[in-house]
């Protein structure tokens, strides 16, 4: 009978607090991850939205090619119009 009471005391005083402490720690850690994950998700969505202008690069590419072509034509004309430097 005495041993049973000792076992009861151990369960209530030692095992139960230890179980609660450990599980509470796990729950706290899991809950602390949630805000971080939400921030990561929001940042990924904002980053994705920032890249919506990427298709404009295709227009920039076309404009660059056209501009370089005009510069080449203009440079060719200048090459004809202007004299070369002495010794060049």
């Amino acid at each position: 009978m005495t041993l049973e009471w000792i076992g009861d005391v151990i369960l209530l005083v030692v095992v139960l607090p230890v179980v609660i402490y450990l599980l509470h720690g796990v729950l706290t850690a899991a809950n602390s991850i949630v805000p971080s994950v939400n921030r990561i998700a929001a940042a990924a969505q904002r980053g994705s939205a920032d890249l919506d202008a990427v298709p404009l690069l295709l227009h920039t590419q076309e404009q660059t090619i056209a501009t370089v072509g005009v510069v080449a034509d203009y440079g060719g004309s200048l090459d004809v119009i202007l004299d070369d430097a002495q010794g060049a």
Partner: protein
Amino acid sequence: MPAAGVVMIIAVVAIVAAAVFYLVSTIVALRRITNGLDEAIAGVVAIIDKSAPVADVVNTINQNLDAGVDLLEGLLVKKAGLADAVGLIDGLYPGAAAQGLRNLPDAKRVKVPRISEVYTRGTLTLARLGREAPIAAASPNGPALRNAVYGSKASAALYPDGRPGRQPSLPRSPVIGVDSPVQYDPDEEVGGPRKRLPLAQERS
């Protein structure tokens, strides 16, 4: 049932209840984490998809810009000479002379003329574009940027004996009207060169 057994059962039930409560709470938190990670993964996938063509497009843009830079650098060096070209670039972009020109490694060893300390950017541009701009004229200190006399072979070829001065007398503007001394026939004049009348006749 003895009292000790009842207490033990109560203790075990309490332990199981605590375990269930915390484990269920943990499961709920993990589900929220999973949902958040799903959203994050979707955003990252969208970023990857949208940024996939960026490298090729940017490389193409850079190749075209490189070609343009090579063209302009080559043209500048050809027309202005290496030293003046580097001086002009350094005048427009201070410190750029240290980097030199990409296709001309010798540009880094050129003694850069301090063009920008004497002339403004606009003047430099005019000097480069117009070989007979006032800045290029001979000064008491010698040629400014280019020799004004020999700077233009093309224009010098037009006047091999020197640029002619003002003509002593220029033909006067023709008198027009019904009473004009010279009557022009529109049928002859339109589309054809103007008649070059003798000077004396034009003055009359």
